């Protein structure tokens, strides 16, 4: 398939993904905004004022980057895992499998669809956050790069989860039992400097800590970890997950008989 035809296939998948989450916006865009607004009110305004500073910043300012990142992570993942699994469940994925669209374009189309939802939700949450605190960005490049790469990483993870899933329960297990705990323990609500050395060491095994802190570094200019290593780690994870996804596609894992 020529590069022009592949580009059309890829952009068709991407457009369909965007159209899907925009069509069901009350399910895809509104709930995360409501949830995050509650976090801002409760943790930021009500409890946050009693906590005082965290990492040298008022708690509200500290927690906002983490909450934005949390919404990007969960929505990127949720978009791809639910869309791709639904396509498998309804067998509409066969529309793509019988077409000449290369596997990498199928994966890239779904992943970029997830990235689009993650970033749109992240942007809306950012706008909501501005009602509660003033936001300035210290390092624009770092902020944009880390939020984009994080959305790519979790969209890929959602894609792989959807390939393996054989029931709707299977697409909620990872978000519930892996993603949520790692996100909550990934430095969204606190600086790991508050923890004992043992728990600090354990926290540093959590990849989400690096993404949240890199994003916080981009916005506030402070971080618990080395941002350069965070970028390298995210890129390595993306490469690994992309290879895994392509391997599954090329072997037709749970897609072809």
């Amino acid at each position, binding site marked *: *398939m*020529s590069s*022009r*035809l*592949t580009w*059309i*296939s890829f*952009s*068709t*998948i991407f*457009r*369909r993904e965007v*159209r899907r989450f925009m*069509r069901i916006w009350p399910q895809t865009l509104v709930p995360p905004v409501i949830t995050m607004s509650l976090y801002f009110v409760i943790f930021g305004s009500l409890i946050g004022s009693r906590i005082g500073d965290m990492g040298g910043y008022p708690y509200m300012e500290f927690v906002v980057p983490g909450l934005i990142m949390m919404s990007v992570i969960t929505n990127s993942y949720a978009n791809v895992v639910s869309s791709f699994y*639904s*396509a498998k469940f*309804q*067998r*509409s994925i*066969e*529309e*793509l*499998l*019988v*077409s*000449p*669209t*290369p596997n990498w374009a199928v994966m890239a189309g779904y992943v970029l669809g997830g990235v689009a939802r993650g970033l749109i939700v992240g942007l809306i949450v950012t706008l909501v956050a501005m009602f509660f605190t003033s936001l300035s960005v210290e390092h624009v490049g770092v902020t944009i790069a880390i939020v984009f790469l994080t959305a790519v990483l979790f969209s890929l993870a959602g894609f792989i989860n959807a390939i393996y899933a054989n029931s709707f329960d299977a697409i909620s297990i990872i978000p519930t039992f892996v993603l949520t705990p790692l996100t909550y323990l990934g430095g969204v609500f606190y600086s790991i400097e508050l923890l004992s050395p043992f728990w600090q060491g354990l926290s540093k095994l959590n990849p989400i800590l690096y993404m949240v802190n890199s994003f916080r570094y981009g916005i506030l200019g402070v971080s618990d970890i080395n941002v350069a290593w965070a970028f390298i780690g995210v890129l390595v994870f993306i490469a690994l997950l992309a290879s895994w996804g392509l391997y599954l596609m090329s072997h*037709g894992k749970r897609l*072809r*008989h």
Partner: protein
Amino acid sequence: MTAALSIQNLQKTYEGGFQALKGISFEVQPGDFFALLGPNGAGKSTTIGIICSLVRKSAGSISIFGVDIDSDFPAAKRLLGVVPQEFNFSQFEKVFDIVATQGGFYGMPRKLAEERTEKYLKQLGLWDKRATQARMLSGGMKRRLMIARALIHEPKLLILDEPTAGVDIELRRSMWAFLEQINAQGTTIILTTHYLEEAESLCRNIAIIDKGTIVENTSIKSLLKTLNRETFILDCSEYLEKAPGLSGFECHLLDSHSLEITVEKGQSLTEVFIELKAQGVTVTSMRNRANRLEELFISMLSEEKMEGVDE
């Protein structure tokens, strides 16, 4: 001439050891209207699944208009359109979007995909439903939607896996007319169906598959010539108490106004009418008890079963 579809020694063994295809071979010529028949579980859908890449073959080769699927599957896919047995579109998408999006998957620019979508939705009587979600369509409309979607890239070979299953007779006949029209325009068509009347009306050549092997591959005309006996139902105007005696013919009384008569190969129906007229019986109408292809199909598969018992 390069075959539209060439299948050589195709084998498929599923995980668990079930051998769905035991080395089938057949060819379909360009422009043909070809029937692939067989009972449930014979291997028809597995064969179609392998051709369109949804099932992986265990051995053998397939080429579509000379393009081997192992050497250039994307090019082979561009020549192929498939209408599957099960509905396989997003139930929540609109009819127009489903068809136009499929064009995009084949690399068609949006404008061309939209023009073709309009063309095929109009031809298949779905244009009024273009803004309707697919789940709101009737069963017949959903089948036509899948035909429109399969045609969006104007394939040279169209495979339809039981396209008229569950479709009422009026709609079935309009779908037949549409398929005959696109076949006349040059599209090679392969059809699997349980309605043997459909295969007899539409198709020129046939392959019968049973238990993963091809048991017959010939023209429908040649196949029908092998039919040794036909059974007819005759409706009579007189009240009949018993079946009239007809020398050389099997004749049974079905009810007070209907007779079932079996005519062996070489016998003439004219003799039947002459003898009935001589006995004062007037025939008002006549029909085959079963479709001719159906009689053959049943007898062939029965023979297979008997051979299996002998073994």
